[in-house]
């Protein structure tokens, strides 16, 4: 039963990540909410190039590292807790590298497409940089904390609390 719940909530968190990244975040940066103070005629072009690619990279990186982590969890067997705890370093490595790639991609792409030195785009860049970090939390930390299988299940920070909510 616990195993079933675990896979179910992995599916739920993955779905949530998709909705969060590809629906909610573009909505925040759209004209409808009008949260952005800066206005420019290049906004649509910026959205079509930088924003969507950046969000896609955020999602892809987190999903790839989540999948690698989950597969590790399925296959991992350790004779002792001490050896399992070594895997915690891998989790942090994934989290940091994922965030770094997101931010680097955002900056590099902005630089190449010459958005970085254009006035009025810093606000957008800051929003995207913020999302690059939040997306790692949503698409990597949340699924791994909720649904890491077997022995590695309590390695992601906060996993014990999150799993106790659904009894996993």
């Amino acid at each position, binding site marked *: 039963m616990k195993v079933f719940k675990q896979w179910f909530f992995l599916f739920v968190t993955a779905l949530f990540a998709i909705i969060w990244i590809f629906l909610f975040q573009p909505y925040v940066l759209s004209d409808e909410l009008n949260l952005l103070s800066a206005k420019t005629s290049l906004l649509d072009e910026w959205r079509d190039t930088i924003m969507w690619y950046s969000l896609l990279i955020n999602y892809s990186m987190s999903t790839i590292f989540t999948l690698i982590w989950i597969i590790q969890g399925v296959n991992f067997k350790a004779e*002792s807790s001490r050896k*399992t705890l070594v895997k915690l370093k891998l989790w942090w490595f994934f989290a940091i590298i994922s965030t770094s790639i997101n931010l680097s991609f955002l900056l590099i792409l902005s630089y190449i497409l010459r958005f970085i030195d254009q006035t009025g785009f810093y606000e957008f860049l800051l929003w995207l940089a913020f999302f690059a970090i939040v997306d790692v939390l949503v698409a990597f930390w949340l699924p791994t904390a909720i649904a890491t299988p077997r022995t590695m299940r309590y390695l992601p920070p906060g996993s014990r609390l999150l799993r106790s909510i659904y009894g996993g």
Partner: protein
Amino acid sequence: MKKIYAIGVGGSGSKCLESVISLHSLGFYGQDTVLGVLLVDADASNGNSQRTNILLDRTIKAHDTFKNGSTQLFKSELINYGNWNPLADVSNATNLEGIFNKPALQYQTPALGKLFDALYSPEEQVADLGVGFRGRPPIGSIVMSRLELEIARGPGGGARNGWQRLYASIQDDLGAGNNQVIVHFFGSIFGGTGASGIPTLAKLLANQLTDQGLRANVRINASLLLPYFGFEKPDDGNQTVYAETRFFALNTQAALQYLTEQAHGSFDRIYLIGDHDKKQYRSFTGGTNQRNDAHFVELYAGLAINHGFQNFGNHGESKGSYISRTSSERLIWDDLPDADQTWQQLSQGVKFAYAWLYNFSLELQDAKTLGSSNFAKGAPWFQYYFSLRGGEDGKPDVSSNDEVERNKILTFWSYYFLVWIEQISTSHRGVGIWFRLPKLDATTVSREFNPDAPRPYHERLDELVIDENRPLDCLDSIKNDLADQKLSNQCGVIGLAHNLFQLLGGSN
């Protein structure tokens, strides 16, 4: 309630008791069974007896600590009636000349003095019996023959020695209406102490019970070991009286003849067990050095107890049965009596002891070092048995003295149990039988095993049992099962041990 009184007579008898004690720990004789153990040996320092005493001591502690768990592990009561040295009850002297006061014998009854000289060589008369009866049944017999008088006087004056305490306990059982009482003797009939002691003690017991009208309510059975080992001449300096392999067949023949002709009414069932391939032991005449490895013949001897309960109450029947191996090259599970049950319970016990000694005990030590909360991140099972906040959540703290002591008790038991089973599994000539275990340092058994000493982690169990058809996963899977499956709610080392035992049984 079943009550078993297991009496090991001599070195081989004490080795059989290792089997009996270990089987009882696993619940082999039934959950509602009390086992009382008495060691009878003239050689108080005998290495075999010492090893049995250590195992018994550690097993009793484990029973006392873990008896209230959810499985049959350590559930049944285990009572130690101690070591009884019949020689000490007969005389303060330690040789035949002194025991029978030869000068007085020659002076008062010259004919008896001459008979004494005719039956026993001068060397035998002065041989030190503090190391046992030196593999000479005639020496043991004459000493044991004096016991009858001495013991019979005992109960009136209160229970003085282990034998008398045991007899008093039998009387209490029968007085309480328990009609499933078995006294089971163990010993060899080709050496000294067992060959002379078992017939004498059984007869003594049967006579005492008959005199009190209780004989019909007690089964007296015996597992008698036929020659199954040999050794070279011991290096005993100038001593010329010692056990010799070449006398084993003769001793056995004489003992069987005695049992056939003289032991009527003493025994209800006799189990004769031997092996044509003689295991070669190092040769010592008694003392701490006489510490022979456990042998599969002794396991068979211990397994006979359950057969003694079958058809309980059919006194007077005369029936012969036999069990033999299917191949002379090796032993397989099917060669054991009650093969399925024996395989299931022994496998479960071995996997449990192995898992505990080489993994869980080390994990709990690690938890103490790393801190519960940190340790639990890598051990999903931990939070179900131990507190993560120093005992504030109602579960015990893994660092508490009680939990540490419980871990030690179970680690001790696991070690001695595995030493025993490892020796059994390597006792067959040329080929391992039933189990495949790493060599444990049996030399430390005479000293004391240190549960805190470093030892490697192991986690694979599927190689342990030979011929197991269903390969078992590793302990990592078992640990996840401990975290995922709904087992008993018992916490601490006790709950963990019983749930682990249950899971290892279920995975067979």
